[in-house]
């Protein structure tokens, strides 16, 4: 199950961000990204929420709160990245710092706060993956 989830994440998450690049390639104005992202988030909401509500389930206040925190942090990250680019930092600095920094932070939090212990093969995988993400964000 875990392996299938990883493959699913790899394929679907990778493609999900491809749209903004296609919009730019079609020559649509930069302001199109706001309605585009509104539809993008609304479609994602409908895809997960419809089956959830059709089973007559209810969202708890805790889930509502953590979901809002995740939304704020996700949009905050995107805004901070956009501002960094607008204020003159080149993309080959901004993307490695934001993605690499986030991976480092999650790695440290995983060890310190969540008690995650890695075997050697996983540790090597994380180091190689970290390098790969840095190179992909530079390239």
């Amino acid at each position, binding site marked *: 199950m875990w392996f299938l989830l990883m493959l699913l994440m790899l394929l679907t998450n990778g493609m*999900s961000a491809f749209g903004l690049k296609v919009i730019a390639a079609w020559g649509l104005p930069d302001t199109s990204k706001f309605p585009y992202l509104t539809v993008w988030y609304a479609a994602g909401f409908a895809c997960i929420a419809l089956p959830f509500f059709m089973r007559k389930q209810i969202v708890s206040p805790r889930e509502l709160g953590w979901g809002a925190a995740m939304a704020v942090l996700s949009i905050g990250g995107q805004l901070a990245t956009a501002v960094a680019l607008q204020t003159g930092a080149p993309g080959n600095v901004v993307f490695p710092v934001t993605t690499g920094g986030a991976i480092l932070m999650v790695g440290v939090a995983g060890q310190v706060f969540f008690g*995650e212990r890695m075997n050697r093969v996983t540790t090597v995988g994380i180091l190689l993956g970290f390098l*790969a993400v840095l190179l992909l964000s530079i390239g």
Partner: protein
Amino acid sequence: MGTSIVFCFLGALSFGSCACVSKIADRQGCRASALISCLFGWAAVFMLIRTLVAKTGFALPGRATGMAVVLGVCAAVAIFAFQMSISMGKVTVAWLVMNLSSGVPALVSIWLYREELTPLKYVAFTLALAALICLFLGKKLEMQAPATK
């Protein structure tokens, strides 16, 4: 440049915190479907407000709307899979795989837009493949020896 770097680190802090909040929510027994529904619901509301504030209107060509729907569903499935996976594995590994997925549009761009496969990208793809193999083997070893988890 100083301000830009501060915003870069703020971006890293926000994205990293988002993954940590996912793990905390999981430990507090939040259901993946409820959590992701809320995440996308709130984000849609924020983005709608942003669109209305920008006063650029909602004009979006049909093909762009169609693509937004398909790729929005892809994103929701990806984050749902991420949330499910951290309840049965490590958040560090799942977060890394999420970030490694940036290689997929890079590969599609090379195929679709005939972008050049530079030596840097070649090395990055090779490292990403090696990393995925190691992560999968590491998980297999972990499952074979649950006491060492």
